[in-house]
């Protein structure tokens, strides 16, 4: 497992290649890339500044990945999350899950993103024509995370 918090951009292709390099047990790689949009809540977004809690963030994400490992048969995971000032079109977050088969890889990738959005200590502040404002947490993100609560991997 690799979890990285960084200001620099990332290369999803290189991360995918690295995660499965030399491992013939990997039959599926699922990935997700989050990107900065140019509009939010009806306003133009010029820049997005991401703050986090150094010291807690990495551990919080590692705990989410461990939870995913306990639920699905997956082989390895990479999570990269950027912080600092970003602008529309920039990449924010990358989750890559390698597994034996696609079902578990897809599910684990979505689970990790849903939990990251509600449990990892990041905060977004956006600069709009109306001024700077902190982005409010969305109930829909809580709902997305909550729906995994009762779902465990079926034992085949």
């Amino acid at each position, binding site marked *: 497992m690799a979890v990285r918090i960084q200001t620099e951009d990332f290369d999803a292709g290189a991360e995918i290649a690295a995660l499965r390099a030399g491992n013939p047990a990997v039959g599926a790689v699922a990935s997700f890339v989050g990107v900065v949009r140019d509009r939010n809540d009806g306003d133009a977004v010029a820049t997005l500044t991401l*703050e986090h809690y150094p010291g807690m963030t990495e551990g919080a994400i590692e705990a989410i990945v461990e939870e995913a490992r306990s639920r699905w048969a997956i082989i390895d995971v990479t999570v990269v999350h950027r912080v600092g000032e970003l602008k529309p079109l920039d990449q924010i977050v990358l989750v890559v899950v390698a597994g034996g088969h696609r079902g578990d890889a897809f599910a684990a990738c979505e689970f990790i993103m849903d939990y990251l959005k509600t449990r990892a200590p*990041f905060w977004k502040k956006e600069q709009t024509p109306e001024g700077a404002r902190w982005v409010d*947490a969305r109930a829909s993100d809580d709902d997305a995370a909550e729906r995994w609560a009762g779902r465990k991997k079926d034992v085949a």
Partner: protein
Amino acid sequence: MSAKLKLLFFARLREDLGTSGEELALPADVGTVAALRAHLLARGGAWATTLAQGRALRVAVNHEMAEPATPVRPGDEIAFFPPVTGG
């Protein structure tokens, strides 16, 4: 282990309180996260409005998400912040 608490504030809370953190000698009557919140709220001003009951607030004790009843002990690192918005 330090006898003091290390308090941290992030994002909107940091801006509203005008500080990113402080060291605080553990008050005798503070044994839980809820009691610590009440202690800080009693300072009045921005503390009262920012930490008011009903404001969405998350607390982590030693890097783990905490509940109002989570114990607070000397040397703990306690962070207050809004609901998270990463990803």
